[in-house]
């Protein structure tokens, strides 16, 4: 039975004329037209993909080129660090704190809030600075501080031990207090 089946299958596939299919007269033209159509589709897809890639590259390039150029930053200003007039021999230095009286006239403040500016000579009521009496502080003031403390530059400021806390940005400083006043 097995040999018969094998023989029958071989006979059917190789010799049976009923398996033949007559081809149309234009069968080859149909196939060639399909090949040309497929090639056109592939070429169109490749061109579309290439164009999309070029546009994408241009957009990304423009985006990256414009990034960081949008706004002109103002020119940097050198910080106006008040310079002290002390000499090394006297051991004075200048704190970078708000010991300098500010006379901003356009400063606004919320109702009830402490004023952002004060008149030179008036002690700052909100200041909570504790300075050891023995820690000398040298300040440079612009304007005319009230009498009581004299700095080496000749300016005097009120003697307020609570206002002479060393700044976090500066090293401990010395203040030369004049007791002769």
């Amino acid at each position, binding site marked *: *039975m*097995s040999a018969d*089946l*094998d023989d*029958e*299958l*071989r006979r*059917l*596939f*190789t010799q*049976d004329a*009923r*398996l*033949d*299919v*007559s*081809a149309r007269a234009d*069968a*080859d033209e*149909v*196939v*060639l037209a*399909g*090949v*040309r159509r*497929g*090639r056109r589709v*592939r070429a169109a897809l490749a061109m579309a993909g290439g164009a999309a890639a070029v546009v994408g590259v241009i957009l990304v390039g423009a985006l990256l080129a414009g990034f960081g150029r949008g706004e002109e930053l103002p020119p940097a200003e050198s910080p106006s660090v008040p310079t002290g007039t002390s000499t090394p021999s006297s051991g004075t230095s200048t704190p970078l704190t708000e010991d300098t009286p500010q006379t901003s006239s356009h400063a606004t403040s919320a109702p009830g809030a402490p004023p952002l500016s004060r008149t030179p000579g008036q002690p700052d009521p909100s200041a909570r600075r504790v300075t050891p009496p023995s820690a000398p502080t040298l300040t440079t003031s612009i304007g005319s501080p009230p009498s009581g403390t004299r700095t080496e530059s000749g300016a005097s400021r009120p003697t307020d031990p609570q206002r002479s806390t060393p700044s976090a940005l500066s090293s401990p400083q010395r203040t030369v207090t004049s007791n002769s006043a």
Partner: protein
Amino acid sequence: MGDDFGEFVRAAMPSLLRYGHALTGNPHDGADLVQGALERVGRRWRSVVRIEDPVAYVRRAMVNAHISRWRRRRRESLVAEPPEIPVDPAPSRLENEPLWRALRALPPRQRAVVVLRYYDGLTEEEIATTLGVSRGTVKSQTSKAMATLRLRLERTMAEGGVR
């Protein structure tokens, strides 16, 4: 592409149509299979023409396309009403052949294994390479196909069918 591909199509078309008929069990599906395979081959004819036997290459492309189509179609979708059954305008001349009817009832992969073995005369190793499966798979598919064919032929003989 050139005229060489046209010449190849004209020369190989009859045998490819016969092969497609044997593979699909239907002359119309076979013709569609041949056309699709030739169009794919024609797009890269310059590389295919370097192969030793382009006809065998096209036959293998037909087998793979036939199995791929079967894989896509076998995912059944349930419908409320049965679809319309197409009427075959020209019944195959082999409809009265019991062996042919038994072959048509085989799953496409088993039928492809039988065709590759008895039509192309390929070995199990060559069939495994063509279908991209293991040699054991080819053996099992062949065994199942032959058992099914024998069973159906015996039933036909028992029913008094023509053998």
